[in-house]
């Protein structure tokens, strides 16, 4: 192993959080190196409009995702099962390469509700402690919405997010989301143009007493220059967002919003195709000394640094700490340890409406976050008394795409093959619309992450094991909200409506969502989590963790907006507190 000259900062992973951390700390004058497992990527070279909209390459063959041969997880539904490795990613698709999962996301850019941040005390106060299921380990975040608000705002400005405010400094705004937390500013760009489905949804949901509003979108509606001087162009509604890199400079991503400014900084360096294998510590384990990584040629390097930032995808941050033996592994039997605790996912389901032939939705003109929403049954925006669950879900009517290979809808009950199948597809293809939900996911004592006792990766390190299943609280919540989607689809004028409830056991094969959260939870005390409220490791003060692995539980929203806000919140603490007194804990344990 060769030891390299020391840097001020080493960053593991160059996606959303890594690129933002690198840019801000390089601007602050620090010498920064980012180490990225995947390849270098750039909009102009890798996602040009001549070749980017390739459904076979990107959606079917999953070109820009992590290959399981490089790293995968083992999975099981309960503690009495033996976990097996995921040999083809399905339920979730971890990103890979510069830009990370921020390249292939759909662009839904949410703020969690203020009551999401003090979830346990909020529900306890309103409904009594008994509303939580016995084994539910949901807990308050150690940070409030008010503290995060300026950082949500800045992340949206970096993204150019398109939307309409529903709550400006406490004043409810027409056309926006009346349930959202207060905003200090309007969205940077106006909402995308709704299509026929969204206009019909808006009318139907309003008639049903709900409060529809446009989905806050990372596919932006107009030309925009962000605070880093990076320019974006309006979305063309091409419908190649999720699983694709955007070729139009229209979808917010690290490549579109941060990298062009970051690569100009002389004190920043990226090393790609290099996989960090370990965070190194002093012999007493009290300080990080840097990282060890393996390059594409298999050579091992030690990169010393004063500050180590874990900015990989949630699951990989957790595993890297486990392999580096930093912090105490969570054990569900003895209920000790914190690393790997409070893993959560997302509970998604919904309805499909089938309309008459004169209703043409033209959903080939779509965008990852072109949608109309209703939050009336999300968070604690509705009375949970007697419902028997905590949590909620957003209701969405989105038009993401109608790409040719995978769009083949048929009427309910139609045959699965042959000429009748083809006929049914022709009858259906332009005349159906889904109304979906994206639901919260609570943590439980027997849902967690640890190292697998059997399976290892190419370098001989144990794979991480996931023990997860959908629990009755979340399934009940989902059924409750999915019933509302069927009502809306009928009110939109659908002649037929099919409804699919979320069911267990969790299956790793069909795609569900890449919103894996928890495992390095941020907490008020070292007993409840891995990092403190500034995302600083409780045991190792020069180690910070970014991303959705910080979430104590997942809300009824996509996580990216909150991941971005937490990154700027942590940066504020690093720049204005930590660096003034480096090596010290920002919160006394």
């Amino acid at each position, binding site marked *: 192993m060769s030891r390299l000259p020391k840097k001020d900062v080493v960053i593991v992973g160059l996606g959303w959080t890594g690129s933002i951390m690198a840019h801000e700390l390089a601007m602050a004058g620090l010498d920064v190196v980012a180490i990225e497992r995947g390849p270098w990527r750039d*909009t*102009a*070279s890798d996602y*040009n*409009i*001549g*070749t980017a909209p390739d459904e076979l390459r990107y959606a079917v063959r999953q070109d820009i995702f992590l290959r399981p041969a490089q790293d995968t997880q083992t999975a099981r539904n309960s503690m009495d099962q033996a976990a097996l490795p995921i040999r083809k990613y399905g339920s979730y698709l971890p990103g890979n390469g510069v830009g990370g999962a921020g390249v292939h996301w759909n662009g839904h850019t949410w703020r969690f509700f203020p009551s999401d941040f003090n979830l346990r005390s909020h529900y306890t106060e309103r409904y009594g402690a008994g509303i939580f299921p016995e084994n539910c380990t949901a807990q308050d975040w150690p940070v409030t919405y008010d503290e995060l608000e300026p950082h949500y705002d800045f992340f949206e400005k970096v993204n150019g997010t398109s939307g309409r405010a529903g709550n400006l400094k406490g004043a409810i705004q027409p056309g926006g989301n009346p349930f959202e937390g207060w905003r200090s500013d309007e969205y940077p760009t106006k909402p995308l143009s709704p299509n026929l489905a969204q206009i019909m949804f808006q009318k139907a949901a309003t008639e049903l007493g709900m409060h529809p509003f446009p989905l806050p979108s990372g596919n932006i509606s107009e*030309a925009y*220059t962000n605070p*880093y*001087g*990076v*320019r*974006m*162009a*309006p979305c*063309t509604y*091409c419908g190649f967002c999720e699983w694709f890199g955007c*070729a*139009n*400079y229209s979808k917010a991503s690290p490549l579109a919003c941060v990298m*062009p*400014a970051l690569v*100009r900084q002389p004190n920043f360096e990226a090393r790609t195709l290099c996989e960090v294998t370990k965070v190194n510590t002093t012999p007493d384990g009290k300080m990080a000394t840097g990282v060890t990584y393996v390059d594409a040629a298999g050579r091992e390097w030690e990169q010393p640094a004063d500050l180590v930032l874990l900015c990989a995808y949630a699951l990989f941050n957790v595993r890297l700490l486990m392999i580096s033996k930093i912090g105490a592994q969570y054990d569900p039997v003895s209920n000790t340890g914190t690393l790997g605790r409070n893993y959560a996912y997302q509970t998604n389901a919904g309805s499909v409406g089938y309309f008459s032939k004169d209703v043409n939705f033209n959903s080939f003109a779509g965008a990852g976050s072109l949608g109309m929403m209703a939050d009336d049954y999300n968070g604690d925006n509705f009375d949970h008394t007697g419902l028997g669950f905590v949590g909620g879900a957003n209701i969405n009517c989105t038009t993401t795409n109608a790409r040719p290979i995978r769009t083949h809808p048929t009427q309910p009950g139609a045959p699965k093959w042959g000429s009748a199948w083809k006929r049914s597809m022709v009858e259906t293809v332009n005349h159906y619309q889904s109304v979906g939900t994206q639901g919260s996911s609570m943590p439980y004592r027997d849902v967690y992450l640890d190292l697998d006792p059997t399976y290892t990766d190419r370098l001989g390190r144990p794979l991480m094991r996931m023990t997860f299943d959908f629990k009755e609280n979340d399934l009940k919540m989902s059924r409750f909200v999915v019933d509302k989607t069927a009502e809306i689809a009928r009110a939109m004028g659908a002649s037929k409506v099919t409804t699919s409830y979320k069911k267990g056991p969790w299956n790793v094969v069909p795609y569900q969502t890449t919103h894996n959260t928890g495992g390095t939870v941020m907490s008020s005390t070292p007993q409840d989590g891995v990092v403190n409220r500034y995302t600083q490791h409780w045991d190792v003060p020069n180690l910070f963790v970014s991303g959705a692995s910080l979430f104590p539980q997942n809300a009824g929203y996509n996580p990216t907006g909150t991941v971005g806000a937490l990154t700027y919140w942590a940066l504020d603490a690093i720049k204005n507190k930590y660096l003034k007194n480096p090596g010290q804990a920002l919160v006394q344990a």
Partner: protein
Amino acid sequence: MMRGTILAATLLAATTLATAARADSDNFTELQRGRYLTTAGDCMGCHIGPDGQSMAGGNLLETPFGNIAVPNITPDNKTGIGTWSAQDFYEAMHVGKRPDGTHLYPAFPYTSFTKMSRADTDAVYAYLRAQEPVANEVDRNTLPFPFNIRLAMWAWNRLNFTPGEFKPDPQRSEAYNRGAYLVEGPGHCGLCHTPRNFMGGDAASDELKGGALQGWFAPNITADKHLGIGAWSEAEIVDYLRTGHTARTAASGPMSEVVAYSTSQMTDADLKAIATYLRERSAVGAPAPQPVASTDPHMQAGAAIYEDSCAACHARDGQGVAGMFPRLADNQLVQQTDPSGILHVVLQGSRSVAAPQAVTAPAMPSLRWRLSDQQVADVATFIRNSWGNAAAAVTTDQVKTMRDATAGIAMSQGN
């Protein structure tokens, strides 16, 4: 005796001081002026070394007569200009001769640099001398016979070159004269933007009317409203030189190097002076032709291709997206008499420049693989004759020539 010695010593000291005053090794002001002129002259554009930082040379400059390897101008004694005096440097800049008396090729624009004052070439010399020497041996004899005979440049110079420093025009404003000095002297804009005669010399009457180079066409930058910059505001020209991007266009190809290394780092006053000069000097350009009729079958085919392959970014009305995707309506580059610029971009794609104040550097993809020669000709004809544009129809032969010329060359990557 003693007295005489002291006197001699004093005289000697006085002589030394006088020399030092002329070439003060700590002359901050002169060095900074030299640095600025080196930037304004975009020396780095051609002389950049293999390390990507020094001016150690080695790049091959394409000319119609063959490739010329660009020399090392770091102060390395053996491979650079370490042994040159200020006078040697002035001779190279002013009359195109090396210290050994041999001729330089006019790919090195001494035809422009001759307009620089001695004080300015001395400042550039002082700045170059202050750089780290980098050893990089460059083969200075890459041209094929007969162009490898440097003595031939003696005859070329007699026909094509008049040495002489810039003379300001007292009838014109200070800004105009400063702009003229920058454009015609250190900026050597004419090297690309003035058409060459058959010997590669400037065609004086056609100054800045636009010229072909390296598979591109450096457009007309005279004050002509149709083909030149006559319709550009001062602010538009300054923005373009500062950032490489305006609503109308984006710098790409060889111009992206000029913006990245040179104009993006010049002062506002100098960029305004350049704008003043270009806008106030004469307009040269063929009158706008009648546009090809929209009923022409090639225009109709071109319109369909445009809708399918271009309109998502450049918009159906040709307005583009300001600062990102060039506006094609009233865009001079696409209407040049020589369509090489538009054909190069359509066939080869191009990445625009990243400048400190416009970091994005958006790119246009290559459409070579999915459009035939006829389709490229039709869509180019459509763009050259829509939304108020007017230019000759593009032929399939022109497309084929550009397709062959750019085959196998990687997309221009900007900077």
